[in-house]
C-alpha cells in the first residue's frame, strides 16, 4: 500500500521553457550565479557521469551510481560553497565534487576497486563518499561543532566564517541517524545545511514509502527552517543554498533544503528500474531537464548572458578532452599494493597484524594466489 503525499509546489524561478521569473530571493551582483559557468559545470559533470557508465559497461568499473537529471540541484548547491566550507556527500554527488574541484578521475577509484576512498578529504574539504545511508549527516554535525569551537562562525569575516553542507537523499530521511543529526543541529544551532535531493526513488521505494509530507516540512518539527525548491532549477537551488549557507556561517543555525528532482537512471548500473517504475515517468522528467532549460534561457531573446557559438564550441572540445582524460585516467588508476590495508588499519602496525601481513605477502610473492 502506498499513501498519497501532500504536494506543495517547490520554489522555482526558471521554468521548463527557459523563462526566468524575476524573484527578489535570487541574488544579484557579486553573489549571483554565473550562469554560463553553471551551464558548463552541468554539461561537464553530466559527461563525467556518462563516461563512468560507459566505463562500467566496458568492465573498467564494478559499479556506478548515476546522477543523470540531478545536475541542477548539485551544481546549484555546489556553486554556493566557499572554499573554506566543508562538504559531506553521499555517493552520488559527482557534480558537487566537480564544482568543489575534486578531480573526477579520483571519483572512479572507489567504483573501480582500486581504493576504498579515492582522495584526501582535507585537500578540498570534500569528504569521502559515504555508502551507509545517513551516516554522514552526523559527521557533518560534529564537524560543525568543531567550527563553532574554533570560533569560525558569526565573525562577519567572509574569508573566515564557515559552514558544513551535508548531502542526503530522500531515503536517508527515514534513517535514525539522520533524525539524530537534525536534533543535534537544531539544539546547538550549528552551522550546517542539510541538502536533501529528493530524487523520488530510494532504489525501488518511492518517496511515499518514506514520508507522508514533503521533506522540507519535517524541519519545522526539529526547530529549523525547511525550504522546498525545484531541484531541476539550478538558479533556485543556488539561491536557496547560498542563503542557507550564509545564515549558517553567520551563526543563524541549520536549514533543510529539499531539492525536488528525479533520478533518471537506475539506482546504479546493477539496478533494473523498469521492474518498479514506468518509462513514461522518466520521459516526463526528461522534459524538465535542468541543462535544457538553462540552455533555452541562455540562447533566448532575453538571455542575461549568452551561450554564443564560440562558448559552445569550446565547451564541446572541453567535453571531449574530459572524456578522454577520464578513459585514460581510469585505466591508469594505481592498483594498491597488497601491503596497503595492513599499513592503514592502525597508525602503527601491531605485532600480530605484522605477522599476518608477512604471511600474506609471502603467499602473494609465491604466486599461489594466481590459481584461485
Amino acid at each position, binding site marked *: 500500500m502506498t499513501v498519497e503525499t501532500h504536494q506543495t509546489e517547490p520554489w522555482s524561478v526558471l521554468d521548463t521553457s527557459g523563462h526566468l521569473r524575476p524573484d527578489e530571493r535570487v541574488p544579484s551582483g557579486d553573489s549571483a550565479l554565473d550562469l554560463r559557468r553553471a551551464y558548463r559545470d552541468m554539461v561537464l559533470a553530466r559527461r563525467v557521469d556518462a563516461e563512468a557508465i560507459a566505463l562500467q559497461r566496458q568492465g573498467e568499473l564494478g559499479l556506478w551510481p548515476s546522477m543523470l537529471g540531478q545536475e541542477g540541484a548539485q551544481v546549484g548547491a555546489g556553486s554556493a560553497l566557499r572554499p573554506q566550507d566543508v562538504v559531506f556527500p553521499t555517493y552520488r554527488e559527482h557534480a558537487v565534487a566537480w564544482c568543489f574541484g575534486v578531480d573526477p578521475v579520483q571519483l572512479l577509484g572507489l567504483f573501480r576497486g582500486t581504493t576504498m576512498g579515492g582522495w584526501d*578529504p582535507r585537500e578540498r574539504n570534500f569528504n569521502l563518499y559515504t555508502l551507509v545511508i545517513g*551516516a554522514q549527516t552526523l*559527521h557533518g554535525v560534529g564537524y560543525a561543532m568543531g567550527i563553532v569551537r574554533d570560533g569560525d562562525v558569526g565573525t562577519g569575516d567572509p574569508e573566515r566564517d564557515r559552514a558544513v553542507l551535508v548531502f542526503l537523499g530522500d531515503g536517508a530521511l527515514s534513517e535514525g*541517524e539522520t533524525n539524530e543529526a537534525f536534533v543535534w543541529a537544531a539544539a546547538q544551532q550549528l552551522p550546517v545545511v542539510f541538502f536533501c535531493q529528493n530524487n523520488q526513488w530510494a532504489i525501488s521505494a518511492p518517496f511515499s514509502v518514506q514520508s507522508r509530507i514533503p521533506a522540507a516540512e519535517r524541519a519545522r518539527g526539529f526547530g529549523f527552517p525547511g525550504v522546498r525548491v525545484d531541484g531541476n532549477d539550478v538558479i533556485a537551488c543556488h539561491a536557496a543554498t547560498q542563503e542557507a549557507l550564509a545564515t549558517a556561517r553567520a551563526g543563524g543555525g541549520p536549514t533543510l533544503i529539499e531539492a525536488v528532482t528525479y533520478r533518471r537512471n537506475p539506482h546504479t548500473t546493477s539496478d533494473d528500474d523498469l521492474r518498479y517504475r514506468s518509462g513514461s515517468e522518466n520521459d516526463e522528467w526528461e522534459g524538465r531537464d535542468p541543462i535544457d532549460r538553462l540552455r533555452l534561457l541562455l540562447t533566448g531573446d532575453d538571455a542575461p548572458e549568452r551561450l554564443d557559438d564560440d562558448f559552445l564550441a569550446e565547451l564541446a572540445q572541453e567535453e571531449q578532452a574530459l572524456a578522454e582524460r577520464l578513459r585514460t585516467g581510469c585505466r591508469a588508476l594505481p592498483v594498491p599494493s597488497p601491503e596497503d590495508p595492513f599499513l592503514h588499519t592502525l597508525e602503527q602496525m601491531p605485532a600480530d597484524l605484522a605477522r599476518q601481513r608477512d604471511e600474506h605477502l609471502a603467499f602473494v610473492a609465491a604466486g599461489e594466489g594466481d590459481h584461485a
Partner: protein
Amino acid sequence: MSTALAHALNAALRDSMEADDKVLLIGEDIGELGGVFRVTDGLAKDFGEDRVVTSPLGEAGIVGSAIGLAMAGYRPVCEIQFDGFVFPAMNQIITQLAKYRHRSEGAVSLPVVIRIPVGGGIGAIEHHSESPEAYFAHTPGLRVLCPSSAQDAYDLLGQAIGCNDPVIFLEPKRSYWAKGDVDTTATPLPIDQARVVRPGADLTLVTYGALVPTAVKAAAAAAEEGRSIEVIDLRSLSPIDDATIVASVERTGRLIVAHEASQTAGLGSEIAARVQDQAFYSLEAPIIRVTGYDTPYPASRLEHDWLPSLDRILDAVDRSFTY
C-alpha cells in the same frame, strides 16, 4: 596515594584536557551530574560546557558527531552510559569510525575514545551488565583497552586520548570504587602491552578487567596447595599482546583464560587459538576457558553463580592439573 579507579579516570581526563585544549568530552548526563558513575565529576565546572558536552539522548549521535569533531581536529572522548546502550552506536563505530583511516589511505586519523562501563556483579537490571568486548575486538581498525587497577585506569586513559587510533575504553564498573596507588608521574607500560601481575611457574591465568583481582586471589589460594600460578592482565584486548602470553605458557605449560563475556567466539577462544598455534609443544594440558555462559546475561539474583568466580577458576586449575 590510594585512589578509586573512577577518580583515577577523572584525573586522566582532567590532565588530558589541561594538556591539550582539543580534548573534549561528550556524552549523556556528563555535565553537572558528572555522569551516572560520576567519572566526569567537576569537569564541566572547570572546563565549561563547550568542552564537557551534555549530549542529546542518542548514542549514534554521540559517536557520529565525535567522528566529525575528530575530522575537524578535535580529540573527543565519548561516554556511553552503560554497556548495553552502545549498540545504537555500533553502525557509526564499525562502518565509519573503524574504517576511516583505511578509507583515506592513512590521510585522516580519527582520535576518538569511547568510554563504556562494562560487566556485571553490581545487581543491575537488564542491559546494565554486558560484556561486549568481542564485538569490538573483532573489528579491525579499533583498539580495545580494559584497565583493572586505578594506576592502569589513569595511564591507559591518558594513552588512549593521546593515541591517533579510535579506542574503545572498557571500564569495569564493579571496580570503579576499588582503590589502588596511583603515581601520575611514572612511565606507563606501552599501550598494547599485557602486564604480569603475579609471576608463577606452573600455570598461566590470563584475564582482564574486574576479574584480575579474582585471579590474583585464585593464585594466592592455589599457592597454599603448592601450585604457582602466573596471572597476566591483558589490558589491551585488541591488539592482543600474545608474545607475553606465549612466553609465559612456554614456561608453565598450562593456560586458563577467564572472562565475564560469553564463551563462544570470545577473547578466550582467540587467545587459545594463538597459544596452540605458537606454543603447541609446550602445552601439558588442554587450554581451559572460564567464562560467562552462552546465554543472555541472567537476572541479577543469578549472576553470582553465572559469573566466573574464585571457585570456578580454582576448579579449572584442578582440572588442568589432572593432565
